[in-house]
């Protein structure tokens, strides 16, 4: 039995029309068959019933006519009956079997069996079949027979006749039935046409109302399944299909948004700078992002399926990891730092945050871990710490040195005078000379310390490093033993830098000294000096962000000595840090280098491998000014000749020392103890003075302000600043101006003389000492 449900293969627009056709077809077919049967039966019944009436009347009439012997009337009666509907023929036989009268005039007088019509045999058959009625339908339903026995009047005058004739009538139903069938068929074809038309209209309606719109929905659904979330069905109306369409549209929209958001999130995770890994509840890695691969070195294929223990550095004890997992399995987020191992084995510090993800049932389904590589950060932190340490050391050292320096100034000055006063007592002079030497050494040390703390006077001049180093190296080589091979590769091109020549010299001395010491007990000891221009590359800049200059002069000193071990190399620039035994090194050399390079805005790089040697590289920024060839001229010394000097210093000891020194050398010195007095004194008789010596830091008014004031009164007055410690910015503004020099305490008499010579040289003529 075919059920309509199994017709799913049929498109919907076909289904209803098809069903209509099917059902209608069945109905029509049924009607047709049934109606035909009914109609045929009705015709038969009708004809039979009609003829029963008509024949009955005819029979009666014929009987009476026979009785009266009206043969002519019998003939007309039967002729007339010939026009009866469905009539084929009717005949009346005499008792002897001859036809008395018939509707077929040609039959009159003949016997029934002589006719071409098989009349009698049929009747005989009917009689055999026991048909009792006078009017009955034949077997095939196409004929209605009428059969009556007619009583003839008796021949002789007997009361009861025994003569019977037969009245036989044949009615043909064929045409009537054909007409009925035709009528029914006409109705059937009309209905079929109507049904067909309706089915077509229905199909059309379905096509428009449903199919077309359904196709829209189908197309949109297909689009959406391919991943195009902008597809919309766009169905209008308020029927069920439109409702589906609207629901579909909003579903797709939401899906599109969700997918977009998911994509964004996964994109974000994928592109995070931190490495992200997701494991399942058992700790098996299911997902890693690209940063993970970049940082750890494991590709996604290598990592997925593994346990995060592949990152174990071995730096943490088992308890650490146990505690971690315990914390996590309680559903809490773990944050902290740990050392991880990359695929190549190197370790890096990472800030780690691991969070458990809960499923719908509240149980942990996944863990999400975020590792941030902070090795760079760590390095920077350490650098900062180091810088801070150095800074505080500098402050400490500077403070001490400053006070120390002042005391030394007094010592040195007094010693000088004492030597001078006791020049006739050689025992004392010798002792004094020793003390002076020691105090000079002390002063030197303080100077180095001050250099480290960047508190000494730095006079940056444009210098051609190439020629300077060549000279300086020659000098410095003296300190290096003969058995050490000294090589130098100095660039031919001039390299002009802003530097303090003295300090550069000092640095060179320190570095060579260290190299010499490192080469002790080394076979084939070698020192290589290298001076070349250098242009920083990206690596250099990333390592030294403070390197702002575009080109540098690189001075490198290399040795193949014992090298510096890793645990020491961090501390080499700290003051008083030394690996040499007591008395062999002050531990200030490299700290002085450090501080000097800082003030020169340069950069130091150290490379060392224990057992192989060390290399120190100093980078000086190239100056855009040309070098000034200014070598101190020691040959000319000028004694004072009664020139008047104004001396201002808040330290009475210093004041006295310096003024005495100068008086001995033939100068007249007026002394004040602060800037205000100095200005006052000066302004009383500005032209009386040949030069002014000012201490920079004084209470009331400082040296710089005093100098400015004096310069307002007399712009050309030569001024010498004596400074205990130098903050560059203090002297800024006045440095470099003509007739202004700054000297650092303790003031050496020679330096003072030289400076005065230079300054007063313009104003007075030269004279020989």
């Amino acid at each position, binding site marked *: 039995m075919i059920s309509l449900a199994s017709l799913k293969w049929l498109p919907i627009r*076909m289904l209803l*029309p*098809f069903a209509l*056709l099917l059902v209608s077809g069945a109905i029509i077919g049924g009607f047709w068959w049934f109606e035909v049967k009914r109609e045929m039966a009705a015709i038969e019944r009708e004809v039979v019933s009609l003829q029963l009436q008509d024949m009955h009347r005819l029979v009666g009439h014929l009987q009476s006519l026979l009785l009266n012997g009206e043969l*002519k009337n019998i*003939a*007309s009666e039967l*002729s*007339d009956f*010939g*026009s009866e*509907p469905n*009539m084929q023929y009717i005949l009346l036989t005499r008792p002897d079997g001859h036809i008395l009268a018939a*509707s*077929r*005039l*040609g*039959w009159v007088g003949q016997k029934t069996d002589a006719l071409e019509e098989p009349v009698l045999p049929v009747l005989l058959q009917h009689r055999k079949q026991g048909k009792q009625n006078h009017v009955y339908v034949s077997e095939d339903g196409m004929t209605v027979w009428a059969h009556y026995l007619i009583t003839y009047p008796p021949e002789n005058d007997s009361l009861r006749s025994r003569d019977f004739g037969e009245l036989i009538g044949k009615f043909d139903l064929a*045409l009537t039935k*054909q*007409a009925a*069938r*035709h009528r029914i*068929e*006409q109705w*059937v*074809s009309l209905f*079929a*046409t109507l049904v*067909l038309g309706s089915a*077509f209209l229905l*199909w059309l309606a379905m096509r428009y109302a449903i199919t077309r719109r359904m196709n829209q929905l189908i197309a949109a659904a297909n689009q959406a399944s391919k991943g195009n979330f902008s597809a919309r069905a766009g169905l209008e109306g308020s029927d069920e299909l439109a409702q589906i369409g609207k629901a579909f549209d909003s579903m797709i929209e939401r899906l599109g948004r969700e997918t977009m958001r998911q994509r964004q999130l996964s994109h974000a995770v994928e592109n995070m700078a931190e490495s992200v890994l997701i494991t399942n509840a058992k700790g098996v890695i299911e997902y890693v992002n690209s940063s993970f691969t970049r940082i750890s070195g494991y590709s996604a294929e290598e990592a997925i399926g593994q346990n995060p223990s592949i990152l174990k550095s071995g730096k943490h004890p088992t308890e650490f990891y146990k505690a971690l997992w315990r914390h996590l399995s309680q559903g809490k987020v773990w944050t902290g730092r740990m050392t991880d191992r990359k695929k190549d084995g190197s370790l890096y510090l990472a800030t780690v945050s691991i969070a458990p993800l809960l499923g719908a049932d509240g149980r942990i389904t996944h863990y999400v871990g975020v590792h941030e590589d902070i090795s760079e950060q760590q390095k920077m932190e350490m650098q900062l710490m180091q810088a801070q340490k150095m800074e505080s050391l500098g402050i400490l050292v500077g403070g001490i040195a400053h006070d120390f320096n002042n005391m030394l100034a007094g010592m040195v000055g007094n010693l000088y005078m004492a030597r001078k006063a006791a020049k006739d007592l050689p025992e004392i002079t010798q002792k004094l000379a020793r003390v002076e030497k020691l105090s000079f050494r002390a002063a030197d040390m303080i100077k180095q310390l001050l250099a480290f703390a960047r508190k000494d006077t730095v006079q940056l001049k444009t210098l051609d490093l190439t020629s300077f180093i060549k000279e300086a190296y020659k000098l410095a080589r003296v300190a290096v033993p003969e058995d050490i091979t000294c090589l130098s590769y100095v660039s031919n091109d001039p390299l002009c830098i802003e530097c303090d020549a003295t300090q550069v010299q000092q640095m060179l001395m320190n570095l060579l000294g260290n190299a010499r010491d490192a080469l002790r007990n080394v076979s084939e000891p070698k020192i290589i000096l290298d001076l070349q221009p250098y242009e920083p590359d990206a690596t250099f800049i990333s390592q030294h962000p403070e390197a702002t200059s575009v080109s540098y002069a690189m001075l490198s000193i290399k040795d193949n000595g014992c090298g510096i071990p890793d645990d020491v190399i961090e501390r080499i620039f700290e003051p008083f840090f030394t690996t040499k035994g007591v008395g062999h090194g002050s531990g200030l050399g490299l700290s002085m280098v450090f501080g000097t390079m800082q003030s020169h805005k340069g950069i130091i790089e150290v490379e060392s491998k224990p057992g192989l040697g060390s290399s120190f590289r100093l980078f000086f920024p190239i100056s855009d000014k040309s070098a000034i060839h200014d070598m101190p001229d020691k040959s000319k010394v000028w004694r004072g000749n009664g020139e008047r000097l104004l001396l201002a210093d808040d330290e009475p000891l210093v004041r006295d020392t310096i003024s005495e020194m100068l008086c001995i050398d033939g100068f007249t010195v007026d002394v004040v103890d602060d800037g205000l007095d100095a200005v006052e004194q000066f302004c009383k008789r500005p032209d009386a003075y040949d030069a002014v010596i000012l201490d920079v830091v004084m209470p009331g008014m400082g040296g710089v302000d005093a100098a400015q004031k004096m310069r307002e009164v007399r712009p050309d007055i030569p001024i010498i600043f004596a400074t205990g410690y130098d903050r560059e910015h203090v002297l800024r503004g006045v440095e470099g101006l003509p007739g202004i020099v700054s000297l650092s305490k303790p003031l050496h008499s020679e330096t003072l003389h030289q400076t005065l010579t230079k300054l007063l040289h313009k104003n007075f003529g030269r004279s020989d000492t």
Partner: protein
Amino acid sequence: MFARMALATLLLTLLISGCTPAPKPEIRIGTNIWPGYEPLYLARNLGWFRESGVRLVEYNSSMETMNALSHGSIEAGALTLDEVLSLAQDGVDLRVVLLLDVSNGADAVVAQSGIDNPEKLRGRTIGVESSAVGGYIIHRMLEKSGLTLQDVHILPLTLDAHKAAFTSKRVDAIVTFEPIKSHLLANGGKVIFDSSLIPGEIIDVLAVRSEVFDAYPEAFAELTEKWFQALAYMQNQPDDAARRMQPRLRVSLDQLGQQYAGLQLGTLQMNLSFFNNATNPPVKKAEHLAQVMRSDGLLHRDLDLNRLFAARNMYAGHGGHRP
């Protein structure tokens, strides 16, 4: 796919409508026994009416035919034109569709021996069937011989009484027609006047009730075709035709030929010239006949004879067509 289904259903519909064709309309034609009508029975005997709805109703006299036609018991009838006019007078709306035969000597006045011309009938008794034909013949005979009705004595006789009346010399002359005519001639009678002297005036036609003709003109076209085919059969196979036609006429085969002497069966040519005759249209002939009937008192009002011959359109297309 739908197109295929539509096509299938359409074919089915056509099949249904072609299944049982509409039956031909039932046309009952009433006739009496007259040689001029027998070709119809030849056609029936040959089975040509089997598929059609034509049924021949056999009456013994034209009076029965007329009654049946008038009552609507039959749809058409084979009658003489005067009989048609009588029916028309009674209000039966008929159409003449076919010229069946023309009397050309078949209708005759048979006189006793000794009377050789109509003039001799002055003061004599003439027996005649009280029908229009008989009256028409007498009228025309008297007209042609300069006599009037007053000059003779008319005795109405039914057809079956003709023989007896003549042999018993009850009448001096009798207006009769075959087959009786031959019998009387055998008994010493002599034809003194016949329809050959008034050619084309006594005609037999097939008259149809107008509503039936209007409803089924094609059925009558078919019928007339079969009529002409029957005539052709008689021409081509006279013996077989005679055998088939004999029973109703009740004459022996050799006598059959004689039956058609003095009778012109209405061929297609005759029908065409009858219906399409411009100069002497059938209406005119009818008018002539009507006049006579009126004067004889057989018609008592004027008739619209045009309606009677409206069926002549059937032959309009046949002009010039040879059978």
